[in-house]
C-alpha cells in the first residue's frame, strides 16, 4: 500500500489452532500478522503425541501393527502396509500372491478414501460450507463399508499382518466393490465439473502457496505435494513394492506447485486408483492369504528402511532389530510431518485466508504428525 503518512501498526500474534475448524485436528500455527498479512509463522505440534516410537519398543513386532492404524487414522491401511512390508523385508518373509493383490486393492481403496477426505476438507477450507465434504463422505462411507465387511473395523483397521492379511474377502465384497468401481468414475466427473471447474475455487487456490520444485525436493515433501510441484515421482512406480509393477497407471503431475495443483493431483489420483483396483481385481489369484509366520517373530539383527506411497506421501519405517522379540528402534518417517517442512516458506507473506487454504492443501493428519 502506498501511503505518504506511515501508519503506525503493531503486529498481532494469532494462534490458529489448536482448536480451529480448519487445522484438521490439533495442529497449531502461531502466526504474526500485520493486518491480515502473515509476517511470521511457526508451527506448534505435539498435542497428539503418544510416543508411539517408544511404546513400540516394548511390544512384539506383531503387536505393533495397531499403532500404525492410529498414526494416520484416515489411511490406516497404508500405515499397516508400510509397517508389515518393512518387517517382512527385515525378517525375509515371503508374502503369498493373493495377499499381495488384496493389499493393493485395500491400499488403493484407502487412498481413494483419504483423498476424498483431503479434497473435501480442502474445499471446505476454501469456504464452501460443508457441501463438498459431505459429497466426498458419500464415497468414503462406501469404502469404509467394504472395510467393515472385511475386517470388522472402519477406521482403525488392523487388517494387514506380517506375511499377508488377516482375513480373506467375504462373499459380498466383490459385488459391492464392483458397484463402487462402476459409479466412481461418473462421480469423479461430477466432482471435476463442480469443483475443478469452479471459478471461485480457482481464484482461491491458484497461485496460492506456491512450492517450487527445487524447494519441494529440498524440503523433503512427498506424495501429492511433490507431484503438485511438477516432479513426477511416485514410489509405486519408482520402487514398486508388492505387485505394483504389474499394474498400469499414470502419475498425475501439477504445473505450478500451488494449492490448486495439489488439489487437482489428488482428484486425478483417485481415477488412477480406480484403474489399479480394476486391474488387481481382474488378476486376483486364489490361494492362501497369509504366510505362515510365527506370532513371536524374531527377525535377525539388522536394520531396514522400507517405504511405500501412502495417500499423504512417502510413509517409511526405519526398523532396527537386535534379534529380539521387540523392535530395537521403530522410527516412522511420517509424510505429514515432512510435508510441513516448507510450511513457513509457503505461508509467510500470505493472508490468513490463504494460509488456511495452503494448510488444507498440504493435507496433514495430526495423528501422523505427532505419532
Amino acid at each position: 500500500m502506498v501511503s505518504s503518512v506511515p501508519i503506525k501498526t503493531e503486529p498481532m500474534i494469532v494462534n490458529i489452532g489448536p482448536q480451529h475448524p480448519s487445522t484438521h485436528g490439533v495442529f497449531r500455527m502461531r502466526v504474526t500478522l500485520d493486518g491480515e498479512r502473515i509476517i511470521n509463522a511457526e508451527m506448534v505440534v505435539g498435542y497428539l503425541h503418544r510416543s508411539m516410537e517408544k511404546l513400540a519398543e516394548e511390544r512384539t513386532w506383531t503387536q505393533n501393527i495397531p499403532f500404525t492404524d492410529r498414526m494416520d487414522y484416515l489411511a490406516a491401511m497404508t500405515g499397516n502396509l508400510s509397517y508389515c512390508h518393512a518387517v517382512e523385508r527385515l525378517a525375509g518373509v515371503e508374502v503369498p500372491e493373493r495377499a499381495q493383490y488384496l493389499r493393493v486393492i485395500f491400499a488403493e481403496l484407502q487412498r481413494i478414501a483419504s483423498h476424498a477426505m483431503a479434497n473435501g476438507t480442502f474445499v471446505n477450507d476454501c469456504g464452501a460450507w460443508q457441501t463438498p465434504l459431505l459429497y466426498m463422505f458419500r464415497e468414503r462411507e462406501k469404502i469404509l463399508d467394504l472395510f467393515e465387511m472385511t475386517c470388522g473395523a472402519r477406521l482403525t483397521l488392523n487388517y494387514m499382518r506380517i506375511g499377508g492379511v488377516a482375513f480373506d474377502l467375504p462373499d459380498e465384497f466383490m459385488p459391492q466393490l464392483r458397484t463402487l468401481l462402476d459409479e466412481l468414475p461418473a462421480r469423479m466427473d461430477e466432482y471435476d465439473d463442480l469443483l475443478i471447474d469452479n471459478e471461485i475455487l480457482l481464484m482461491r487456490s491458484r497461485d496460492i502457496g506456491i512450492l517450487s520444485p527445487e524447494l519441494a525436493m529440498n524440503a523433503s515433501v512427498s506424495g501429492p505435494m511433490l507431484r503438485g510441484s511438477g516432479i513426477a515421482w511416485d514410489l509405486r512406480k519408482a520402487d514398486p513394492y508388492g505387485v505394483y509393477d504389474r499394474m498400469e497407471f499414470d502419475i498425475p503431475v501439477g504445473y505450478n506447485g500451488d494449492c490448486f495443483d495439489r488439489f487437482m493431483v489428488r482428484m486425478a489420483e483417485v481415477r488412477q486408483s480406480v484403474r489399479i483396483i480394476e486391474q488387481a481385481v481382474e488378476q486376483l489369484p486364489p490361494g492362501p492369504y497369509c504366510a505362515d509366520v510365527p506370532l513371536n517373530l524374531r527377525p535377525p539383527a539388522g536394520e531396514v528402511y522400507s517405504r511405500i506411497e501412502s495417500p499423504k506421501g512417502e510413509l517409511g519405517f526405519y526398523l532396527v532389530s537386535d534379534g529380539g522379540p521387540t523392535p530395537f528402534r521403530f522410527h516412522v518417517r511420517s509424510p505429514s510431518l515432512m510435508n510441513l517442512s516448507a510450511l513457513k516458506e509457503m505461508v509467510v507473506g500470505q493472508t490468513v485466508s490463504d494460509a488456511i487454504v495452503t494448510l488444507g492443501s498440504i493435507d496433514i493428519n495430526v495423528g501422523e504428525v505427532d505419532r
Partner: protein
Amino acid sequence: MALLARWYDVRDLGNAVAGLMDALRDAGASEGLLYVVAGLLGALGILGFVGFTSVINIWVERRLIGRIQVRKGPNRAGPWGLLQPIADAIKLIQKEALTPKLADSAVFTLAPIVIFVPAILAFAVLPWGEGMVLADLNVGVLYILALGSTSAIMVFMAGYASNNKYALMGSMRVIAMLISYEIPTVLALLGVVAFAGTMSLSGIVAFQETHWSWLIFFQPLAFLIFLFGASAELNRSPADIAEAESEIIAGYHIEYSGMKFGLFYAVELVNVMAVSAIIATLFLGGWWTFGLNEFVPGWMLFIGKVYAVYFIFIWFRGTLPRFRIDQLMAFAWKFLLPLSLVNVLLVAVEVFIWTEYEISAGIVLPIFAVVNFVLAGVLIAGWARVMTRNYERFPRRARLVSEIDVPLPAQSGSAARAEA
C-alpha cells in the same frame, strides 16, 4: 357486522384492519386512538411474522442445506424435525451466557440486542399487500439503505467488545466490506428508483402493476448487482468473510454463547428475510403477480416470493466457496461499481427517451426490456473478460505421466541450492 363481513375477504388483511378502523370510528373513537391502534396492529403483525419466520427459517435453512448436502437434515424433533428450532432455542437459553474477562461487557451485551433493531425496522415500509403497509414512506428505498448501513456499527461493536483477535479481524472485514458494497447496491437501486420514478416502495409496486411487468425485466443488471451486493452485506456465502467459519472461526460473534449467540443467529435469518423481501418488492412486483393477486391473497404471494429469493441465498450458501477479502473488494470496486454506473447511465437515457418523446409505455417498455437484457449479458461477459486475472495459464487437469521422470538440475548443485 361490517367488521366480520370483511374478515371473510382474506385476500387482503389490510381490508380487515380497515374494517376494524371503521368499526372503531363508528363507535366514536378519536382519530388519535385509531392511529395508535392501527400502528400497534401493524407492528404486532410484523413482529409476529418476523418472530415466527426467524424460528421456522432455522428449520427451513437447515433442512434445505441438508438436502443440498445429500443428507437428511434435522428430522428427529417432532414431525419432519419441525420442532428443531424450539429445541435449539431451549438449548441456547439454557446455556450460560459467558462474557470474556477482558471484554467491554456493556457493549458486549448491547451489541446483539441493538443489532435486532434495523433488521426489524426494515419490514415497516414493505407493502405486504394492496394497502397493507405500516409506514408508506415516500423515501422508503432511502430508509432501507440507511438501515442496512447501520448494521456495520453493531457488528463492529460485537467484534471490538469481545476483546478477541478473530472477532476484531471479522469486524474489520465487515467494515471494509460493507462500505464497499454500499456503493454498488445503492447505485443498483438508483436505477430502479429512476425507472419507477418514486422512492416509495408501494409506489414502485404500483409502477410495476400499472405497466404490467416486474422491474427485474427492465433492470436485470441492477437485480444481479443487488443480489450479490446484498449477499455480501448479509455476510452470507460466497461473501461470508466476516464469519468465515474456516478462517476466523465465527468472526465477530466468536465469543458469544447462549442466547446472545442465538440473537446473532436469529438476526442473520431476519436480515435474509428482510433483503429477500426488498428484492421481492423492488424487482419481483411485491404482492402484484400478473393478476394472480386477484385470486390469491397478495401477502401470500409476497411471502412466496420472499421465500423464493431466500431459497437462492440458501442455494448460494450450500454450493459456493468463499471469496478472499481482497477478491471481494476488487469485485465490488472493479466489477460491480462500473457496471452499476453503466446501469444508471442506461436508465437515465431510457427514461429520458421515454419521457421526452412521450412514447407510450406499451411500445417502449418491451424494447427496453430486450435491450437491457442483451446489454446486461454483454456487459457482464465483456467486463468479466477484461477484469478477470488470467487463471488459465495452466490447464485445469493434471498432466499424466506414465514413467517417473525427474531431471537433474541444469546447473551445478550449489548454484541450485543458492537459488532455492
